[in-house]
């Protein structure tokens, strides 16, 4: 009595009637995935095809199909050996993949020469938060099933009875910086909103005088500066170092009014002129015009994010909107993936910090990069090989061991494998070596399944099917 043979449902689950359409549907799904990857990016394809629950479910159904079909022939006859082990081999590979997905890690660690590291990053968006001096907490925040929205926010109750909510999530967002007025107790910068328009370029940006991150705008062929009039004049009289040939300077006059001066091919376009808000002025570069629609005497940059269509061949830039409730107080804002963390203090001296970035995983050992070497093809700048000399240190015993990691020669230690992935060169000529670090508990299951599968196929094809009793070798 074999239920796989007798039970109607199990028989259907193990039938070719199910298998064949599934094979074709799988092929079509995968083809779509590669086209999505080509049209958009690897991240988009992972997010919307390969990493989805329905894709995983489909593979699971395939495994069920294989299993039922193999067991429906139980007890197995000798000539079915190939058939059975082929199908079980595929199940093994799928099981191995599941183990890897659940228990494996796959990330990257970048080290400068001389640097030691033991934390690697995995591309799994994670929200970090910290209350006062408590340990940093993490929550997975890639939201593959249902992104949080104002109606269905993600809520975390904090230890001080406060509430952290994520109520908006953009999978791909454009970061913009706006000026806002300072609040009580904050120190701001003089701020001006600048718009530049020509037939090619439309730029819209806030500049903050004295804030190194936001005090100028580089358009490539030209730059816009916001400076005190006296500082600008001083810079010009010292030869104008660091000022490109084409520039626009918005100047804060000592009396608090705004002026502007343009510069074209290294020559000033006249003396500084008074600047009226909201009025268009020519820059002198091609047909470009500029205006300053608004200004703040004391403002601070505020990041906001807008949802963007998927990027073309680039990584996704997710962003999330949070709200923190503490008693009657509320604080809300945006935090972007890998942009700077947000911190603030509410009443009773409760300090909050929030960050959004890749998942950070601690290695059980530390890695120190001693020396990075690149070899080139003779007479070219094409790298032929690259390798890192490292020390790895068991953190329990503190013993340091030297190792050489190169392409195709990874380091295996404490269940982890460290591969030479790539490298970057700093402007000063020193190297940053990038390793990929992984732990793959399912690999032996996958390898075993793979060997069984291939042997099974060979077996199946080598031993002729007994139903084919006609000789095949007759001439035509």
């Amino acid at each position, binding site marked *: 009595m074999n239920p796989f043979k007798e039970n109607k449902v199990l028989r259907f689950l193990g039938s*070719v009637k199910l298998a064949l359409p599934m094979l074709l549907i799988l*092929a079509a799904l995968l083809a779509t995935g590669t086209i999505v990857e080509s049209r958009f990016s690897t991240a988009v394809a992972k997010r919307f095809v390969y990493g989805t629950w329905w894709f995983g479910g489909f593979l699971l159904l395939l495994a069920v199909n294989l299993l039922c079909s193999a067991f429906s022939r139980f007890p197995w006859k000798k000539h079915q050996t190939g058939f059975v082990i082929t199908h079980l081999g595929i199940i093994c590979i799928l099981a191995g993949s599941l183990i890897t997905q659940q228990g494996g890690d*796959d990330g990257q660690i970048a080290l400068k020469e001389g640097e030691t590291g033991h934390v690697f990053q995995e591309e799994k968006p994670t929200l970090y938060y910290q209350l006062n001096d408590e340990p940093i907490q993490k929550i997975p925040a890639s939201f593959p099933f249902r992104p949080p929205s104002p109606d269905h926010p993600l809520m975390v109750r904090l230890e001080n009875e406060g509430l952290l909510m994520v109520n908006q999530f953009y999978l791909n967002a454009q970061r913009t910086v706006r000026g806002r007025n300072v609040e009580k107790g904050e120190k701001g910068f003089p701020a001006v909103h600048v718009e530049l328009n020509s037939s090619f370029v439309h730029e819209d940006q806030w500049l903050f005088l004295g804030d190194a991150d936001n005090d100028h705008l580089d358009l490539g062929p030209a730059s816009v500066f916001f400076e005190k009039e006296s500082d600008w004049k001083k810079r010009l009289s010292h030869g104008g170092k660091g000022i490109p040939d084409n520039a626009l300077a918005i100047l804060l006059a000592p009396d608090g009014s705004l002026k502007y001066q343009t510069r074209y091919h290294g020559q000033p376009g006249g003396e500084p002129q008074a600047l009226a808000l909201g009025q268009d002025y020519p820059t002198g570069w091609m047909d470009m015009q500029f205006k300053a629609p608004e200004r703040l005497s004391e403002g601070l940059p505020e990041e906001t994010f807008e949802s963007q269509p998927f990027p073309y061949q680039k990584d996704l830039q997710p962003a999330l909107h949070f709200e923190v409730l503490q008693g009657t107080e509320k604080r809300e804002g945006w935090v972007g993936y890998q942009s700077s963390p947000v911190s603030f203090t509410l009443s009773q001296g409760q300090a909050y910090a929030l960050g959004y970035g890749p998942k950070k995983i601690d290695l059980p050992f530390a890695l120190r990069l001693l020396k990075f070497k690149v070899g*080139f093809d*003779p007479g070219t700048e094409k790298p032929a090989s690259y390798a890192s000399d490292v020390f790895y240190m068991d953190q329990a015993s503190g013993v340091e061991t030297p190792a050489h990691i190169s*392409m195709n020669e990874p380091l295996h230690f404490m269940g982890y494998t460290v591969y030479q992935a790539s490298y970057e060169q700093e402007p000063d000529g020193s190297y940053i070596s990038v390793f990929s670090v992984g732990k793959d508990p399912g690999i032996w299951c996958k390898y075993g399944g793979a060997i069984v599968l291939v042997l099974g196929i060979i077996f199946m094809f080598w031993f002729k099917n007994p139903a084919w009793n006609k000789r095949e070798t007759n*001439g035509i």
Partner: protein
Amino acid sequence: MESKNQTTIRHRFTQMNTDSEKIFGKALVSVHLCESVAKKLFFVLMLLSVLCGLAFAGELDYRTLSLIPIQEGGRFKPLDTFARESVRFATGREAYEGRNPLATVLDWAAHPQAWDNKNFILVENLDFRSLIGIPQDQKWVSPQLLINHEGFIAYAKSSYAKQQRKITLDPKEKESLAVFGRLQRYEDVKSGEVLALVPVADTATQKWGTIGDLNRAYHESKAAVPEAALGVLESFAGVLNAYDKGDDAQFQAQSQALSQILAQIGGKDYPDPGKMRLETQFNSLKPFRWAWIIYLVAALLTALSFVFKSPRAYNWLYLPGFALFVTGLGMSTCGFVMRCLIAGRPPVSNMYESLIWVTFMMTVFALIFELIFKVRLFVLAGSILAWVGFVLADNIPTVLSPSIEPIEPVLRSSFWLTIHVLTITSGYAAFLLSLGIGHVCLWFLWFRPGRKETLQKLTRILYRVVQVGVVLLAAGTILGGVWANYSWGRFWGWDPKETWALIALLGYVAILHGRLAGWLRELGFTIGVVSAFLGVLMAWYGVNFILGVGLHSYGFSKGGLPYVIAFVAFEIVLLTVVGLKAGKGKLSAVDTPMPEKSLNPR
């Protein structure tokens, strides 16, 4: 006149932006060199060329010169290869105007002013021809036209900037960069800037000295140039001089002198002359060209043996055809072995190499199957496909570059890589053969639908060929996982190349299941096999040439898409026509006992 000429060139190039300096900066150097070269080395030659006019040099013996090693593109190659590649690169054909490529390259250096005004720089894209204002039927333009063409320079510059910003270029923009590259190659050869003949390696870059470097040093301070280097310059000038006069005896003597002095400087690290000789032999033998000629004749003879069905036709047409097929196989094997010896690695790095490998393996499979089944059809299908494969490999160098280039770091010294690629492409080869046999089946289905017995046998044979492909593709894909795990740290990552290999495999597996379940008979199975090859085509060509994303980027390229689309369209029409025609009288043709018993659980 010449110096004025050079000044305008420099003027053009110096107007370039700094951000494009990496590619365009070289032009500056080379143009700068043009001046020093013109002043020193070519001054004599100028006089000579005035004296001799621009008469073509007589037939010279280039053998000694062709063997001299040059460092270029990350390896050492004989001048012969360098000249062939340079001329093919700049003009699109190796024997430009039917001349020995080495003679063409020497002529570039000897008569730059004539070549500057000659239309010989290839412009492929028709729209780009209109863009730079030449007639659409004009295939070549002169360096002068390009250098003085402000629009062209600006366009190439902006295309380059776009490429740097990773913006996808349109065909015209790609062509502008390609044309610039061709112009650059000519300028660099002319000035001696790429002629890295002097085996004195810079310790940091391992870069050999070039004739351009020597000229510059000579120009700056004659006294500081070592004697050996002076000897190189003298004999190089001597070679050009003798070339110009067409004096073979002197040309031989000077080539010999140059070769000797360079070998002397190189000492024990100088590349092995035997290897250089092997490469020049490979270049002039052209084994893959011979292979397609032989396969063409084999295909014709075998086809005729089917037309005339007598035993005499077998003896006088098929047997010679078979012999030629084996000869073709021998020829391509020889080419293969030589290429591997020259490159020092197996042919796994680009589309050209995979095409010749797949074609070669296909003929190996065809021979084995022919020896097993003895149906003559494997010789027919095999030789036709081999002819197509080797013709493609031999004739479109701009898409399938036959140059031997160093391999990417990740592909180096990896046993798994070699095994993985060779297994997977052998799978493609078996599927290519199944495509050929599939077309034979289609022919029978269309024109001889009554011969059921034959069709059944053919389908069983086809099934066997597909099985071989499935084993190899499955094993190769899994080996790819093993290699990826070994080298990138993950077994499977849905990279487009591995995904498409899987899709192709799934297609064939689906057909095998359909066949075993008894749903696909002769017609269905044949149509299935031929259409499943489109999956292979996508995995093989499409991922690299159409999708162009993923980790297998070392094989990415462009070109040939219209032909591939035409092929796919042709197959679809053919399958529809045969399907409709054979489908009509179908029910009589399929009442074959099918081997579904083993699949039925009861």
